[in-house]
Every structure is written in C-alpha cells, then in structure tokens.
C-alpha cells in the first residue's frame, strides 16, 4: 500500500521533471569572481534572462576566488579585475580573457574647506602614500592647485586592507610612474604598505576618508560618486590634469596598447584626454565552454555595453570592442 503510493509519487515527479526540461529550453550558467563589476553584471544577467530565458548565476566572491573557481572548473566562467598571471594561466590551460568594461580608480580625499578636483601629479601621489609628504600645505601639493588655500592638516593615507583588483590598478600605476615606489612597495592585489591605515573594501576605505580630516585614499569611481566624496584630477603621461569620469576612462582605454591576449593593465595611458589610473575588468572563459556562454558574451559586448554608463562603468572603446568580439568568435 505504502509502496504503491510512493511509486505513484515517484512516477509523477519523474514525468513532471521530464515535462519541465522539454518544455523550457532555458539553460543555467554559473560564474563567480570580481565584486567591482558585480552591479553591472547583475543587471546584464537580468536583462539577458528577460531576453533569452537563459539564467546566469553570479557570485561576487572576489577576483582571486573567481580565478580559483574557474581553474577548478566549478563554475562556467570566472571574473577578475586583474589579469591572471603566468602561473595561474598555466594551471588553467585553455582560458582566455574577455574585457567587458573599464573602471577608474580615483584618489579621494577629505580636506577641510576644499572641494573636488585638486590637482595631483604622479610623483606627489606616490610620495603621499610612501609617507614622504606629510602635510597638506606642502609646497609640492599647493603649487599644483594655485588659488586653493590648503590647511596645514596632516595627511592620513588610507589603503585597502583586503586584496583587491583596485589595489592592483593603483599600485601598478604608481610603479610605472615612480622608481621609489617600484623599489620599495611594488605592484599587486595586496602589497606591503609602509604608512597609513587599511580599511576593508571600498566601504571601509571610504569610511576612513570621510571620518578623518586630512584623509586620502583610493577607491573606485562609482563608489566615490555615489557617496559624494571629492576626488582629485591626476596628471597623465601627456602632462594634462584629467578629472576621472566615464568618458576619460574610455579615452584612457583607447590609448592603451593591449597585449594580444588582453592581459594588460592599462594604467598610465598615452591618450591625451585619458585618466591614467584605469583598468579593464575581465571575464575568464574556456575556449571549449558552453555555446550559451558564447552567445551571452556576444550580447554583453554589443547591446550590453549601453548599460555601462548608467552604473558609472566605462564602455569599451570601439577598437577594443572589435578585438574582444573577435576573441569571442574563436570560442567553440
């Protein structure tokens, strides 16, 4: 009696599942990685689902976690703000990098009585974070922004305490422009800071800056805009002071020389109107990944790009977009 009942249930369940799988052709893809582009990706996945029915689950566990997950093939794709290094690439043969959008890292500050847009040069930023410039009224700072009256407040430099792609972009830039920085600190997702304090995540650093008179730190452009924290215009390699914005980020991406596999950090751009502290964020996919993933990538690189501006991400410049699409076309 009991068994027949159980049997019935099992049969119905089986029938139901087979019905379901035949009825809807929807596929599910999974991805994991960077937190920085996560808001944009979530929006993309929502719209893509509405359009095609394909569902994509994404977990923002951090770039490092994304690389580990895609290496272990526990997800269909990974996402990272920093390109994979050679060792990581060797552990995951067949992976290619697809840039999706670019982002800017801004130098945000809290100086009593001073609004956004002070001018900073590459070497001044490096020396502030090395602890060599300690007061806001230091001649090297004041002479860059004539007409602004700086107080003699002490400078409190803040950095990310957790490993992050944001730190990688910022320290890569400083290593390119300052020999001292390259020798003493170097570049990476997590480096050995000699001065200041560390905050966890963009919110941690932003809280430190907001609460400390004289504070300075680096955070993502979108985060600084949303939280109304003033940030500086930074001199680029062509000698122009560029205020970070979506447009100047795209311009920077245009002026960067990209490696054929896209594994380049595009800081210190040669573009005259490009903001120098910028980087691409990547999706990491295997050459033989599911066909649905290829379709999604094509959509993200074309229709998806128009979503970027609203969320303060810089869309890919036309030249990069073309190359990225060509790379996607090589997927199986």
């Amino acid at each position, binding site marked *: 009696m009991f068994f027949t009942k159980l049997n019935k249930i099992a049969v119905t369940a089986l029938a139901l599942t087979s019905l379901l799988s035949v009825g809807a052709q929807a596929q599910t893809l999974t991805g994991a990685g960077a937190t920085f582009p996560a808001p944009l990706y979530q929006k993309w996945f929502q719209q893509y689902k509405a359009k095609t029915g394909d569902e994509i689950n994404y977990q923002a*566990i*951090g*770039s*490092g*976690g994304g690389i*580990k997950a895609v*290496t272990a093939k526990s997800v269909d794709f990974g996402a990272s703000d920093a390109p994979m*290094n050679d*060792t*990581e690439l060797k*552990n995951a043969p067949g992976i290619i990098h697809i840039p999706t959008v670019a982002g800017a890292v801004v130098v945000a500050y809290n100086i009593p009585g001073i609004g956004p847009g002070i001018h900073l040069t590459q070497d001044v930023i490096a020396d502030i974070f090395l*602890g060599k410039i300690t007061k806001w009224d230091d001649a090297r700072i004041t002479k860059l922004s004539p007409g602004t009256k700086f107080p003699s407040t*002490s400078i*409190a430099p803040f*950095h990310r*305490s*957790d*490993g*992050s792609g944001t730190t990688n972009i910022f320290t890569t830039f400083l290593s390119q422009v300052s020999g001292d920085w390259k020798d003493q*600190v*170097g*570049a*990476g*997702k*997590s*480096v*050995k*800071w*000699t*001065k*200041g*304090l*560390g*905050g*966890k995540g963009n919110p*941690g650093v932003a*809280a*430190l800056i907001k*609460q*400390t008179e004289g*504070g300075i730190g680096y955070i993502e452009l979108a985060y600084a805009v949303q939280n109304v924290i003033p940030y500086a215009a930074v001199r680029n390699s062509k000698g122009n002071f560029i205020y970070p914005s979506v447009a100047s980020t795209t311009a920077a991406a245009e002026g960067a020389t990209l490696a054929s596999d896209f594994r380049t950090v595009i800081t210190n751009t040669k573009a005259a109107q490009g903001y120098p502290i910028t980087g691409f964020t990547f999706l990491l996919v295997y050459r033989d990944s599911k066909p649905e993933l290829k379709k999604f990538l094509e959509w993200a690189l074309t229709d998806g790009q128009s979503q970027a501006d609203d969320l303060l991400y810089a869309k890919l410049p036309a030249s990069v977009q073309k190359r990225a699409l060509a790379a996607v076309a090589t997927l199986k």
Partner: protein
Amino acid sequence: MTTTPINAPAASPASPKKLVFPKASFSILYGDRIYAAITFLASLSIFGIIVWLAVQLSQASGASIHKFGWSYITQSNWDETKDIYGILPYIFGTLYSSFLALLIAVPISIGSAVFLSELAPKWLRTPMTFLIELLAAIPSVVYGLWGIFVMLPWLKTHVMNPISHAHPHNKFALWLFDVFFSGNPYGPSMLAAGLILSIMVIPFITAVTRDILKAIPRSQREGSYALGATQWETISQVVFPYAKSGIVGAVMLGLGRALGETMAVTMLIGNQSPGTPTGISFSLFQPGYTMASALANKFTEAAQGINTSALAEIGLVLFFVTIVVNMAARLLVFYTAKDVAGGK
C-alpha cells in the same frame, strides 16, 4: 498475599519460597552500554574534529613551513609582491588586543556579576541578567559597525585628540606618552580594537561568573555571616576564594572569544602593522593587525601557492596560540584551586 516482583512471570506459585528474578530485558542488558557507546562517539567526534583540523591546517601550510621555518613567526615582513611572509606583528597584535580587552573587561564583568548575584534587588536582577545575555547574542559585525560610526568618532574627539594634544612635563609622563600614546590619532587603532573586544567579552564573563557565584552553597555565606563577617568580608573572603577557579574559567572563555574575534576587530584596528622596525608597538594609538583579521583580509584574493600556504599557516599558528593559552589557563586553575578548600 504474596508479593511478586514487578515484571515477574507468573511461574512462581509451585515453589513460592524460591527467589524470582525478573527476566532481564534487552534494555537492561545492553541499554547502558549502547548509551555509553553513543556518548563516547560524541566525545570522540570533538577530539576527531580537532585532530582533523590540525592535520588539514598543517598540510595546507606545508609549503610555507618548509620554506620559512621559524622565521615565519619571528620575522615582521609580510610582502605578497616578493612572497616573503613573517607574522610576528600579527601574533603580537592578537595577544596585545586581547590583553587590553581583558584588562578593561575583567574588573567590570566581575563587578557586575557580584552585584547581580549578591547585592542586586530582585526587581533589578532579572532585567539586567536578560540584557547581559542579549549583549552576548549580538553578531560581531554589528559591534563593528557601531564601532566605526559611533565609538570611533567619540573616541577620537573625546579621548585621542585631547591626549595627543597634551604636553606632559615630568619625565614619567613623557615616558608614558612615548610608549602608550605615540602616533597619529586617526581613530582605528589598538585602543579602539581593545575597547570593542572588551565590550564584546563583558557579557560572556559576566554571565558565566554570575552563574558560578550563584552556585555557591548558601551555607557558606550563612556561616560567614554567623561568624560576624560583613558583606564585604563575606564576598572577598568566602565567596571569591570559593569561586576562584570558576571565575578564571569564565575569563578564559572571554579570552578565547577575544583571540579569535575577526569582523569587529578588522573594522577597527587599522589593518596596518606599526611603522617600527619590528612591526610591534605598545602604543594604543598605533594601528595593528591580528592573525584573525589578517586572514579575513587576505584570504579571498590570495594567489595560489606559497601565498595561500602562508595564510593557512596563520590559521595553524592561531590554533596553537589558542591551545597554549587554554592550557596555561588550565594550569592556572589547577594551581590556584589547590590552596582553596573545596575550590574545585
């Protein structure tokens, strides 16, 4: 009327004088043994988990142990870009912040526990006990957020800034300032971490201490009063010595939480080793790093290989520090309890 044993089969009337034992049921024969086996397995599982954890951690940190040896815990350089790892400042930060926490928490906790168990009127006792237990249940991230947005600004304007603007005159004060109050009063610091930890462990120590004091037999107190002792004398001469080992245990429970606390500390300690050559500073205004907060900060983005291995070794060292501290506490209880009659 003959009395037959309960459960006895009715086979006795032929020879009533013969003793009749109840037929042993399955539960009588094996029940205790099964029960003992189950509880043994339960206790074994705890032991097994600890061993398994130690083995796993050692395996994961093998590469780092092999490469750095003892220099891992004696060096102060943690540099991912060069793949050199030493955690002396983290070990120091863990111990120092926990020490500060206990320094503040122990007197307050014991004081409030004594009040609650010995002195408080009944109408106050229940709500206060409830509040303390409530405090213990608040998640640590909430303490951290409260710390950032409420405690830090207050601490900065009312404690750190006045102290760092003071000008000490005599030699001792100068020395004191140099050792304990050097550095910029940014806010996040050893002081902030120690304070938040103390707030977090106070409810634990208070609740356990109160239970211990309540468990002391009434006769002990009555005997003391009968001999003419005052309330203070009773509490200090009779109640405390009786509860000594239990109170040490309560403090160790608090210390255990302080050593391993991660989220709130990460949010308030500044996550930066002090700029001294050893990465160690006793200054309360300097930022610091604890082992738990270093793990929380660095693990998600760690590179594969030696970096991940070095992080796993932090876990291993924290594991051993906790074991050593707990063993030290046991020894302390053992030796202090010996000279108190009925102390255990």
